[in-house]
């Protein structure tokens, strides 16, 4: 594979991508082909962003909304990762556990996070639990599935070597399955972060007084598309930060192992 790219070049290329994207956006919205209520230009959104940073909308400034969303997201997402990854690895190791969990998991994961809203409301009301449940239900499947399949596809040679060395099952999981499936697990965590954010809007249908999702729902019914887009940008931005963090970890491990 191509050699490691120096960071400056990487940034430059990334900037090119973003400039191209924003340019296209500005061109489409500026061309008048699309009404500004549907696609405001990037500058409008930027202005609105600055406005929302200081002025309160739907009960708080953007930062206030972002902060409460982040708390819910962090709780749901971390729970999903903390349960999903170990469970996935365990299922990859223990057939029986796999056989027990799989039928449930393979059904439940198809149920939309927002379909849980009524039950989340019935069970948790406006508590913290409801949103966490919904974000969890979005982020959990990729965490589990990627860990599970990563573990399943580990080269059997390594398992045989570990068993030959008398490695107990717990240690096989931490020292063989886990490192061997790191790329897959990180991909799962990245996807999970995206799906978790997506579920946030559903989650904030229950606890509606704060949150970026709530802000977006309110803005949508008020036909304030710029506000909706500020919300998307905010979520996108946090998503980018999480992604960069995860990818950095992955790249570091990858480099250490001299992967392709």
């Amino acid at each position, binding site marked *: *594979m*191509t050699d490691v*790219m120096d960071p400056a*070049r990487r940034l430059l290329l*990334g*900037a090119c*991508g*973003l400039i*191209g994207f924003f340019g296209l956006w500005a061109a489409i919205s500026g061309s008048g082909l699309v*009404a500004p209520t*549907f*696609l405001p230009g990037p500058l409008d959104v930027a202005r609105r962003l600055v406005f929302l940073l200081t002025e309160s909308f739907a009960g708080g400034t953007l930062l206030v909304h972002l902060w409460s969303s982040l708390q819910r997201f962090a709780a749901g997402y971390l729970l999903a990762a903390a349960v999903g990854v170990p469970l996935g690895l365990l299922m*990859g190791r223990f*057939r*029986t556990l796999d*056989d*027990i969990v*799989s*039928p449930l998991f*393979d*059904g*439940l*994961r*198809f*149920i*939309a*996070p*927002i*379909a849980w*809203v009524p*039950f989340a409301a019935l*069970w948790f009301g406006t508590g913290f639990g409801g949103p966490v449940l919904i974000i969890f239900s979005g982020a959990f*499947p990729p965490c589990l599935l*990627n860990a599970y*399949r*990563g573990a*399943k*596809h580990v080269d*059997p040679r390594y398992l045989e070597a570990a068993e030959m060395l008398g490695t107990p099952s717990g240690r096989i999981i931490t020292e063989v399955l886990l490192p061997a499936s790191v*790329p*897959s697990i990180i*991909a799962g965590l*990245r*996807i999970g972060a995206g799906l978790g*954010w*997506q*579920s946030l*809007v559903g989650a904030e249908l229950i606890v509606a007084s704060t949150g970026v999702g709530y802000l977006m*729902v309110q803005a949508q019914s008020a036909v304030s598309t710029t506000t*909706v887009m500020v*919300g*998307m940008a905010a*979520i*996108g*931005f946090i*998503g*980018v930060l999480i*992604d960069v963090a995860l990818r950095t970890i992955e790249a570091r491990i990858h480099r250490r192992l*001299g992967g*392709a």
Partner: protein
Amino acid sequence: MPLSRRSAVGVTTLAVVALAWVLLTGVSGLVSPGRFPTPADTWAAGIQAMMRGYGDATLVVHVLQSLKLVALGFLASIAVGVPLGLLMGWSKTAEAVLNPVFMLLRPIPPLAWIPLAILWLGLGDGAKILVIFFAAFVPSVINTQVGVKTIERPVIEAARMLGTPRWRFVREVLVPGASPMIFTGLRLSLQASWTTLVAAELVGALAGLGHMLNLAQQDLYPGMILVGMVCVAIFGALTTALLGAVERRALAWKRTRGGAA
């Protein structure tokens, strides 16, 4: 017989869950019917959906409509997601250029795409498929990308040594090499197609399981919600089983322990 053992355990698990449900909600009443529907409620809702219909259509119509949307959305997402993932996995330049945009776009909830989808494609199936597509192509991209990166270096070197031209290299080295992870991505894309159905069918659906779930939510009809959820779960699992069969054929070359994942 590993397969029958597997299904035996699976059936047992489902039976235990069903039994727990009956015991908790129906018989003992430990969980009040207000919090979770009883088997009787659910049965009644199921019969209603099947015979009289719910949300202006019978269950069969809902299922068929949803299957169509999921199939088209899923196919669109892999048609875009896998090639994009291959490109981003192989070319550092492409990755550097595309990844920031991709990262920025992908956490956007499907609900937020709805206005644009309506604007571009109206209230027909097209808009719904677009919404599904936006949610479903992400896992394919990421898993494919990572899958390409995990191909062992010697194998890639061997292909280059043999002078493999670009397209053949993609088809015969990158794709099969990344295929275990590509299939992980497809599984998640398929899942995302199903889970986005509820959001997609907010776009003026006349039928569909998502439509049914939306209505049931609006109506606070837990029995019907459960019927919808179970249907989605069943058909999600069935479509996954189909994908699994394709995967088993495609990964026949791979040595794994305890059968295909």
